[in-house]
């Protein structure tokens, strides 16, 4: 019995010994599972709670975002509405822009000796930019509406030699209807096409030869202009200018002390579109003025410097045309511009030789001339920012009749600058405009403005504009 018990005990012990860890492990496992389950449950609960909170947060964030957007919108609205309303005096300051330009010139001939042969010197700013580095004329432009009837503009030219001149200063009407505009003051005349364009908007560094010899670079009279635009879909304008005659081809410089009108211009333009890609304008203008004692310097046959002067009437007729093309009228990639002008002038009156009696003595006699000239130019924008252009200039000295020479009192050698000659010039340029406010240009010209002399002129130029965004004429 005891033996049985013992065996049973032993077995039980053995079994127990072997079984108890197994049971314990089972319990642990159960416990673990339970813990894991609890953990899982709690995490699930927590995740659920977190998700709930997250979505709530998201919702409120969205709301905040919407609120922020609204706030931003209203802030920007407020800013947009508030910004023009600065309550300082400067709020009504005119729009100011400044144009600065400079050149590097490399010329074969000394530009100080530059003449355009066959044509009486104009006394205007026809000189070439100098050799080496030089600052060009800076322009200070101020303009604003004066009231609802008038607009005012002042353009001061700051010359590199420290002089300041009023390039333009005019008022123009805003309040007239039926296509009428009146300008008064000093302004660039509507004679021709290039004359009205400011030098910083030119496609070449310098003016065409016709503008140099017939208008003294540019014509800006003190005067009044009346212009009428026709009520048609085809653009048509007619106008006239009455001026003082203060610059070439009028004269003397500054104008005469005389009541009435010293010079007059009549002009008419037609313009329109050809499809969406092409726009054009043609013009016809006529300038009449009478010069009194319009002087110029020359070297006579003895080699002495003499001052001659012209008194008489001057008539100038100009035909101009411009055509601009861009694919679909969108000039941001490529564009093309063709431009040309033809000038024809007749002058008659008397020419006084050596007015200061510095050489052979003062002699006055009849004078008459018929002269003409033209230029044509093409500018192609071959990729954004880059343009290349070519210009051809040709002047025809035509016929000049000098009384002193006809009568044999003097010889043609006493008026060397008036000797018949047909100047020509070929000009090439490439320019790069990093933005619409800056431009760098390289120009090469082969200039045959004087007999037997071919001048090679290279200019590297920058033109930059600061301040108010200018609007450019077509």
């Amino acid at each position: 019995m005891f033996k049985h018990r013992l065996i049973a005990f032993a077995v039980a012990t053995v079994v127990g010994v072997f079984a108890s860890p197994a049971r314990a492990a089972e319990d642990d496992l159960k416990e673990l599972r339970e813990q894991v389950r609890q953990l899982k449950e709690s995490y699930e609960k927590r995740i659920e709670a977190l998700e709930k909170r997250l979505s709530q947060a998201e919702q409120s964030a969205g709301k905040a975002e919407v609120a922020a957007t609204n706030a931003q919108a209203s802030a920007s609205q407020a800013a947009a509405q508030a910004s023009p309303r600065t309550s300082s005096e400067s709020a009504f300051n005119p729009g100011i822009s400044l144009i600065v330009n400079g050149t590097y010139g490399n010329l074969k001939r000394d530009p100080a000796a530059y003449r355009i042969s066959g044509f009486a010197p104009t006394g205007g700013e026809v000189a070439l930019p100098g050799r080496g580095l030089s600052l060009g004329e800076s322009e200070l432009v101020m303009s604003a509406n004066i009231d609802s009837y008038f607009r005012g503009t002042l353009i001061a030219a700051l010359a590199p030699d420290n002089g300041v001149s009023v390039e333009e200063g005019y008022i123009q009407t805003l309040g007239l209807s039926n296509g009428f505009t009146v300008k008064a003051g000093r302004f660039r005349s509507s004679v021709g096409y290039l004359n009205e364009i400011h030098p910083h908007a030119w496609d070449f560094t310098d003016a065409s030869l016709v503008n140099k010899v017939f208008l003294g670079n540019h014509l800006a009279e003190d005067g009044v202009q009346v212009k009428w635009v026709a009520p048609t879909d085809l653009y048509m304008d007619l106008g006239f200018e009455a001026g003082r005659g203060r610059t070439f081809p009028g004269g003397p410089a500054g104008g005469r002390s005389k009541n009435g009108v010293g010079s007059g211009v009549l002009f008419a333009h037609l313009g329109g579109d050809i499809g969406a890609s092409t726009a054009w304008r043609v013009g016809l203008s006529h300038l009449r003025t009478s010069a009194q004692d319009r002087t110029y310097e020359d070297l006579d046959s003895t080699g002495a410097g003499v001052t001659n002067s012209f008194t008489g009437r001057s008539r100038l007729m100009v035909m101009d045309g411009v055509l601009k093309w861009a694919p679909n009228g969108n000039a941001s990639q490529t564009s093309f511009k063709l431009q040309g002008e033809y000038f024809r002038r007749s002058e008659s009156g008397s020419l006084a030789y050596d007015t200061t009696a510095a050489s052979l003595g003062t002699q006055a006699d009849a004078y008459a001339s018929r002269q003409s000239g033209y230029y044509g130019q093409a500018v192609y924008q071959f990729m954004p920012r880059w343009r290349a252009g070519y210009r051809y200039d040709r002047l025809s000295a035509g016929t000049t009749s000098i009384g002193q020479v006809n009568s044999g009192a003097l010889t043609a050698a006493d008026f060397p600058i008036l000797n018949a000659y047909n100047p020509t010039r070929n000009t090439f340029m490439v320019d790069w405009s990093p933005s619409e406010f800056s431009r760098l240009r390289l120009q090469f010209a082969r200039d045959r403005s004087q007999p037997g002399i071919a001048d090679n002129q290279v200019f590297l130029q920058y033109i930059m504009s600061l301040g108010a965004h200018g609007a450019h004429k077509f």
Partner: protein
Amino acid sequence: MRPIILRVLGLAGAALLALPAVAAVNILACEPEWAALASELAGDKANVHSATTALQDPHRIEARPSLIARARSADLVVCTGSDLEVGWLPLLFTQSGNAKIQPGRPGYFEASQFVARIEVPRTLDRSMGDIHPGGNPHIHLDPRNIAKVAEALAGRLAEIDPPNAQAYRERLAAFTPRWRAAIERWEREGARLKGAPVVVYHKDMSYFIGWMGMREAGSLEPKPGLPATPAHLAELVERMKREPAKVIVYSAYTSPKAAEFLSSRTGIPMTMLPFTVGGSDKAKDLFGLFDDTLGRLLAAVK
């Protein structure tokens, strides 16, 4: 003899009398979207002409003779304002000899005055590119802005043409619910675009992006108004490799080259957007403009 003279005089008189009756309001719109809106609101009461097309960059227009001629005869000039037309519109004011359309008169309507402008720069400096002091001027690509401008424009039309005031009010009353319904539809259809990053060419899509809840991930122009440069494109390619955008868009008036380059380097789909009325075959009017813009974006953003 006498009856003929009488007949001629009678005809001339009838022609003179008939003139005011057929004379409609002449509207010159600076941009096609305002021409389309003016046509919606004025119908046959106005001759509407747009100064620019959808294929032209509204920043780079010249005061061509034809535009001066149109401005001369205009009773109302409808423009965006905010300096968008600063390079050419001032010349139309000074050259046209038309007192009616001068700023400050009822004949000059500036759409951007009637909406909240975004991206108003805090500081102004030209080194930042072609920025507009009054904020981003391309307001028409948020259709809610169109609704606001429509209301103001209908009021202005009634002011300058009182005999037809009722007609303008009625046309606005017909347009507004149609437009509101269309906005709801576009918002529903475009819900998928919410949050989608987009690369633009110029910052001319900002109002659309804001309305749709999209995100501007970059601009092909290094600075507003300056053409894309190789260095800037290379940087964009790198940026797109890190955080790819869903779509690259460019407007009908801009060159597709930069967008094509970025798309080919990154595999991000690109699409042309009409930008304004007339920019694509489907964008025939304002409804078509948004239908097509949304359709093209949805097709590109998968």
